[in-house]
């Protein structure tokens, strides 16, 4: 039995006499953060958090604690019960998950779990050493996370996950390049190679010049399309947004909205991503096909939204932990189908005349209903001329429609890349998107910014 499941079962017992479930997170992680080629914020974290949900006659209350002794769990039970007692009946509550078999998944690697602080710092040092001519900024991190859900229904599920990521920005005053890699096996990562990629990219960004704002044909590297896709997914591929009319897909399911090459799904069982066996209500993960050959098919669901829809939908296993469910269900294992292109260079040929975008910065959703997102390009933006990547371009302000971008796909690489999407706020929960690089006819630039570099 994992530590997380032991805690979950103890927490449920602490809520004696009530219907209850408990979701538990146990973390041990290290973060070797570096700047200007020096490790400056090395952080080691251990924590365990128990979220207990108590149900009394249809009234629901939650409490979270990291005090996991008996007194702490008893206090959490008391707080959750008081919250339930204070609340009116929740007609949207879909009940507690009944026991159900959950799929076995990969996603745990002993060697990654056992990485020592010395090894984490060593990986950061290897990255730094590989970019000797520029300052290197970023981090190497690895961690082990246990998740468990137990319930008075008899539900008892748990999973251990490992994750490792290296993120690098190689930069000086006039140049900057970016590369990252992530996996649940630290042995898949080569920090030196990632840093070298960033440094090589940086060298090509010197002497950047502006371009006239317009709607460009563009190549987006996996780092860039991953971020756009996740922002779109958060606001539109979520059943709560769909039901409330905020999603781009509201009223549009079944319609062909995107290019035929755009196929998108969420699959917690995919070993190439960060595999997940169940969601944070203990519901088994299902593969959900969301866009098929450009046709909008579905979004992800949790128990609450499935009940709210009232049309036979069931949870697809995408719930957050109870107090966070106001966000609705979230697709944490997005995959975008690859295409035919053998390389990013082939995508540039499809674009012929346009821009190449490595990475984006600080996205904001301008209009969720229409899928309009703004942000900046950074750390590797280039012109494409005559089907070739040519000269560097300054950072560009884009305000673009994701649906238009996906409707204007010109090509996708065969290979897909896992891109980390966690910024490691609060509890660690590894997730990423599996995406190809893409070429599109519709990436709208509305302004120019400063040049690459620090």
């Amino acid at each position, binding site marked *: 039995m994992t530590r997380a499941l032991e805690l979950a079962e103890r927490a449920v017992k602490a809520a004696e006499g009530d219907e209850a479930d408990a979701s538990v997170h146990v973390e041990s992680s290290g973060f*070797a953060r570096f700047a200007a080629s020096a490790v400056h914020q090395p952080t080691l974290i251990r924590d*365990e958090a128990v*979220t207990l949900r108590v149900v009394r006659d249809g009234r629901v209350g939650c*409490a979270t604690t990291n005090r996991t002794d008996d007194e702490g769990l008893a206090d959490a039970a008391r707080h959750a019960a008081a919250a339930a007692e204070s609340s009116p009946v929740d007609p949207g509550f879909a009940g507690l998950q009944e026991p159900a078999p959950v799929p076995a998944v990969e996603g745990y690697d002993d060697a990654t779990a056992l990485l020592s602080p010395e090894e984490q710092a060593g990986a950061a040092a290897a990255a730094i050493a590989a970019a000797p001519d520029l300052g290197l900024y970023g981090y190497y991190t690895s961690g082990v996370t246990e998740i468990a859900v137990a319930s008075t229904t008899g539900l008892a599920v748990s999973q251990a996950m490992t994750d490792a990521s290296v993120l690098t920005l190689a930069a000086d005053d006039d140049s900057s390049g970016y590369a990252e890699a992530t996996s649940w096996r630290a042995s898949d990562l080569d920090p030196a190679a990632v840093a070298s990629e960033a440094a090589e990219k940086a060298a090509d960004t010197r002497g950047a010049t502006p371009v006239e704002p317009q709607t460009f044909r563009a190549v987006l590297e996996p780092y860039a399309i991953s971020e756009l896709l996740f922002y779109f997914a958060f606001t539109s591929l979520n059943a709560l947004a769909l039901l409330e009319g905020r999603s781009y897909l509201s009223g549009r399911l079944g319609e062909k909205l995107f290019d035929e090459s755009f196929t998108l799904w969420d699959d917690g069982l995919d070993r190439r991503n960060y595999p997940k066996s169940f969601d944070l209500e203990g519901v088994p993960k299902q593969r959900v096909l969301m866009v098929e050959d450009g046709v909008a098919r579905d979004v992800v669901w949790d128990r609450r939204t499935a009940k709210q829809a009232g049309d036979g939908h069931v949870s697809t296993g995408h719930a957050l932990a109870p107090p966070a469910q106001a966000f609705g269900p979230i697709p944490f294992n997005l995959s975008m189908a690859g295409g035919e292109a053998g390389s990013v260079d082939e995508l540039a040929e499809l674009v012929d005349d346009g821009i190449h975008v490595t990475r984006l910065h600080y996205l904001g959703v301008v209009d969720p209903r229409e899928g309009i997102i703004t942000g900046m390009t950074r750390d590797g933006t280039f012109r494409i001329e005559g089907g070739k990547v040519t000269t560097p371009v300054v*950072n560009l302000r884009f305000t673009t429609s994701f649906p238009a971008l996906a409707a204007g796909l010109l090509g996708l690489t065969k290979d897909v890349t896992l891109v980390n999407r966690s*910024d490691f706020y609060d509890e660690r929960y590894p997730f990423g998107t599996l995406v190809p690089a893409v070429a599109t006819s519709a990436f709208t630039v*509305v302004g120019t910014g400063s040049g690459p570099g620090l």
Partner: protein
Amino acid sequence: MWPERAVEVQVLSSAWEGARGRPFRALRAAGSNRVSKVRTAVQDLAGQAIDAAVADGAGYADARVVQRRAQLVATKNGEVDSVSDSETEGIGVRVLVDGAWGFAGDPRLSKEGARDAAARAVAFARASATRAGARVELTPRPPAVGDYAPTVERDPVDVPLEEKIALCLRAEEGMHRPEVKITEATVRAMREQRVFRSTEGASVTQRFVECGGGIDALAVSDDGRVQNRSYPSAHGGSSAQAGWEFVEGLGLDREASRVGEEAAALLTAAPCPSGVTTIVVDAEQMVLQVHESVGHPTELDRVYGTEAAYAGTSFLKPQDLGTLRYGSEHMNITADPTTPLGLGTFRWDDEGSPARRQPVVEGGVLAGYLASRETAARIGRDLGGSMRADSWSRMPLVRMSNLHLEPGAGSLEGLIADVDDGLYLCTNKSWSIDDKRLNFQFGTQAAWEIKKGKLGKLLRDPTYMGVTPEFWGRLDAVAGPEEWRMFGLTNCGKGQPGQHAHVSHGTSPARFRDVQVGVRS
């Protein structure tokens, strides 16, 4: 950034802070002798941690013990959406070994937890030292010793949940309109104790009490268009270091009818036109403007590049201090961790530097930076203390505390009266700014056209964009003290691993000439 990422989700627990409050219960339940014992026990743990760090080879060590309890009540469409009560506690130990930093956090408030955290912090510092760069130097500080605690009328955590739920449901009622499909109300409450000790002799205990709330209305038209309005602020409303009387004073139910009406009216409003025009920005949106285009670029760690890979750097350089023209002469920005009710108010920051009000921009000229002891030593100036950590499990970073746009003169009406043709922009909706904090595009929930000094029709989907010093250079008036409002935000993100900061900004409405508006995709 603010909020750090629009899609950053706290996956596993509350979307608000976790919390823990045993010592507070003890403090309330017991007499003064018991109070002293509880505090002393926590201080002893912090002392044991720094002693252990020194024994393991640290040249400097500090320890923070944080215990927090928080509640969130959220209602939606007349039903309770979430009632949660959370707590967290732990110890964070920061060390310098051979001039290199190390940090470790542990949830166990025990001798074992304190000593393990210290040992691990030292080990990580030692392992990192080969790639730690120049030896870290800290600007000297007299050791901080003492206590800090706010005075509140009603501890917000102790206010019955039933009362919180009733307030939310009452506020929601006023927003109802046929076009308004989603109404939401939230209130939050938090109390926290932070004990800090260092090998330099610092020993402080600080207590913080926060609460806040807000309402939102989402209107949806028959043809699927969506608009929203919020009060008193988007992104979860506004909070303060105050008792429950602050939430009661927000007037959520008083403003609900207007919020619902405006959300509905936006469905049939004309779109904001594109062009270059004069804008008057309301106090709430000015909060975002100050936060993004002044607060973050004046964080000295960003100036030195330590956030380059994630949040970005700054267009400012160390040598710009005292000379760089940031904006017009109407621009005066002050960092003030002593402001009553501010979420960034403290007596000492999280490395023991005392709170001090200081100018950041004076008459349009860069006059200060937000700094740590390390960055202050590097720039060679004492710039006060702005180091804050979002919990026991994170290393302190240079953060905003309370950063204010100082008021000018006159009323909002006066600002508008001097506009022949322009826009009045209200309440943040979208936000994005580049990695050097120069090129920004912000959107607001609503705008009203201004024609010949009078407000005209409502406009939907307004956006404006600019480049920071050019934009602030177009500031030609700031409304006076009677229009100055302070907003408290709980979602400022920064750092890897990510950290949230609670910050406040006081602002008055302000007027800018020749601004690009109506950006379209």
